[in-house]
């Protein structure tokens, strides 16, 4: 099948970007979206054009490298998938497809569809860990954790740090990202001792980096490739309030 692609091209961080149109006819439905771009790039290189730069690595939805804004949605049509898991099946012959990088001030464009997400790393530097030195851990079964809490912690811990939540949010808020980590660690007894400091520091860093606030729209939850729930943000607020006030 044939598609018309309108892809954001931007030479580097300082250059002005624009949409460039590509008509591409080597598309088959079972191809992944990124394999379609791979094929287009092969064609561009042979023609002497510069290929479209985009991040991707594991190509199985777990490393969080990829992430494209496709037809106005992070990771395009579909639910609970990253861009590399999107196939061409949802598209029809003759479709026009808009492809953009994540749009958020804290994620500046580096080139074409690649953005700088190091702000996420910085938020985690501020407290997204449990302070335990190598060698000082007790036997793993010395602290029993109710299965229910452990499972809830797991559900929050599966965040892949891709940034789709920020891209989806009209405020460019990183609340779901921060909430997932705060929840994961706050739900486990191992994470409780520094829970107060953690939540305060991470929220402070999030604000400092220029992410917006949450207005409960829920776009982040709807677009999260790992379907991390909005209830995490409620827990984040509770943790934050407790830490600041009580």
């Amino acid at each position, binding site marked *: 099948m044939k598609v018309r692609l309108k892809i954001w091209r931007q*030479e580097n961080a300082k250059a002005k970007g624009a949409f460039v149109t590509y008509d591409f006819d080597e598309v*088959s439905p*079972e*191809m*992944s979206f990124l*394999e*379609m771009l*791979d*094929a287009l790039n*092969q064609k*561009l*290189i*042979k023609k002497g*054009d*510069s*290929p479209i*730069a985009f991040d*991707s*690595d*594991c*190509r*199985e*939805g*777990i*490393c*969080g*490298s990829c992430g494209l804004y496709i037809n106005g949605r992070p990771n395009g049509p579909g639910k*609970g998938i990253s861009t590399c*898991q999107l196939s061409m*099946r949802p598209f029809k012959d003759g479709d026009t497809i808009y492809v953009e990088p994540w749009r958020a001030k804290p994620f500046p464009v*580096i*080139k074409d569809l*690649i953005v*700088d997400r190091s702000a996420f*790393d910085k938020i*985690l530097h501020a407290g*997204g*860990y449990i302070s*335990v030195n*190598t*060698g*000082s*851990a007790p*036997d*793993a*079964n010395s602290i*029993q*954790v*109710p*299965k229910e809490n*452990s*499972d809830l*912690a*797991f559900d929050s*811990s*599966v965040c*892949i740090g891709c940034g789709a939540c920020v891209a989806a949010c009209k405020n460019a808020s990183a609340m779901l990202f921060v909430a997932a980590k705060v929840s994961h660690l706050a739900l*486990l007894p*191992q*994470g409780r001792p520094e829970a107060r400091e953690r939540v305060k520091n991470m929220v402070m860093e999030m604000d400092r980096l220029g992410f917006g606030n949450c207005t409960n729209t829920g776009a982040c939850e709807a677009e999260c490739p790992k379907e991390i729930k909005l209830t995490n943000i409620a827990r984040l607020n509770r943790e934050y309030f407790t830490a600041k006030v009580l």
Partner: protein
Amino acid sequence: MAILDAKIPEGSLAEKWTNYKNSVKLVNPANKKKLDIIVVGTGAAGSSAASALGELGYNVKVFCYQDSPRRAHAIASQGGINATKNYQNDGDSVYRLFHDMIKGGDFRAREANVYRAAEVSNQVIDHYTALGVPFARDYGGSLTNRSFGGVQVSRTFYAKGQTGQQCMLAAYSSLNRQISKGTVAMFSRREMLDLVLVDGKARGIITRNLVTGELERHSAHAVVLATGGYGTIYYLSTLAIQSNGTAAWKAHLKGALFANPSFVQIHPTSIPQLNEYQSKLTLMSESLRNDGRIWVPKEKNDKRHPNDIPEEERDYYLERRYPAYGNLVPRDVGSRAAKERCDAGYGVGPTGLAVYMDFRDAIKKQGDKTIEAKYGNLLELYNTITGINPYKEPMQIYPSAHYTMGGLWVDYNLMTTIPGLYAIGEANFADHGANRLGAASLMQCSGDGYFILPFTISDYMADQIKTPRIPVNLKEFDEAEENVRKRLEKLISINGTQTPTSFHKRLGKIMWDYCGMARNEEGLKKAAELVKELKHEFWTDLKVPGNLNELNQEIEKAGRIADFFDLAGLLITDALNRKESCGAHFREESQTPDGEAQRNDDEYLYVAAWEFKGEERPHQLHKEKLKFEEVEVKVRIYK
């Protein structure tokens, strides 16, 4: 080149590591601050090593090619991580895990290293739990386990099908803590393109900043490579598409011996290739074989829908051939059995290169809910990619390149043959012999990084305290940087007609066809010729667009593929040299009458460590004889 000295400590196997730790040289905290260590790679091995070394007080610099250290491919490990806790009271012990690994590796691994890996496995689980890994628990709140291929106890800890993600993120969190403390400096989007030796010692690296294209110099008292495996030499594999062998290969060219390069694990259960555009193969965790039954039709070319094939017309070939282990045979055995059935014409799916993995009976017995709780995300992943619902009909699976047991040769200290250069995790060769057991990779990577390297590196660092910080304006750095620049300029100036990826695909196909699951002398010799021809074509007709001083993903690919051509040559040489079948290395000339691998212990009970002797000159083989003092070397039987 000196004879290989593995530096295995004295004493019985169970005492070696304890004795070693009691006598290893130490560095006092004040001196550690003056010592620099470079860690390349941020997977389960690199992140854990960097954080542990940072905690000790060393000055650590860490490098990864991704935008964030969290993205290293340990993140994709699915099924689990082994430890000898014996929480299930089923008779597990350090010795049993050690024994399973030695046997699983088909008696081609070094006893002392494997025993140590088993010994530290419990500490790894304790540490990850303390870091907040939500391992699966039972209703009483205790940790629970599952079984994996090649073993008869339940020792695998897991977090659904995302154990690697959870361990990786925990290691990343400990790395983040050190970054925030300032003991570790993180350099993302950097690729190591050469190793710098000063007076024969590893003293630094040359990196390319992948955003600006700038070449950078970094110096240190020691360099640790945690750069993973080279499975992408087959193009299609379960690895991340950017995984590569370049860092290890550059170290090899500078004098580090490369051990057992032909030992590549082909994983039995990945989603089969769908079309020629495919960029990778997705793994379906081995843990699925706990409940998934593998079969093909008893009739050749049976085109019926799998659900229409009655029970008596199904051949559960693993259960038939290996009644003791059934569907849980080790990976090499499982892969070969699938290939055997498909080659004989019993394969299924559109290409005939697939077998069924069926959850029908498990669902009947345990219910949808239980199966979903155990494997939910994996079954969903399968559904997303193929459009087939595995709750309703069997999955189609086929083997694919997955893990490289071969790697840089290291001694008991995890040091390569270059003083001050260490290799940990998948990048070294030490623990898995000719075949790795499931859930033993996260275990080894994390053990190396958290609990082994921090001790063994101190033995070397103790002698470095009088060496001041290494300046980067030495002529050795000038030369290395100049060589890197020249190579990049050469690649970009060929200006031919073919893309890097097109060469990679062709190289991968040669390797898969002649140096994959089954190998023979004629095929290997042919492959050597084909690789040589293709390499020549590459260096005369490659087309790399753009410039060197910008973000240029094609020059990155070109450099990695250029190194793969040379590594492919060595891989084939090693496969040709080893005229026996062992583990994943199956030489068709060397098999039993019923098609099982036939080892030749009289001639090949050694690690093949290859020394680079210069361009266009053959590699020199060094043999590290393997001595088995605690385990009886016998035929590996899973029947």
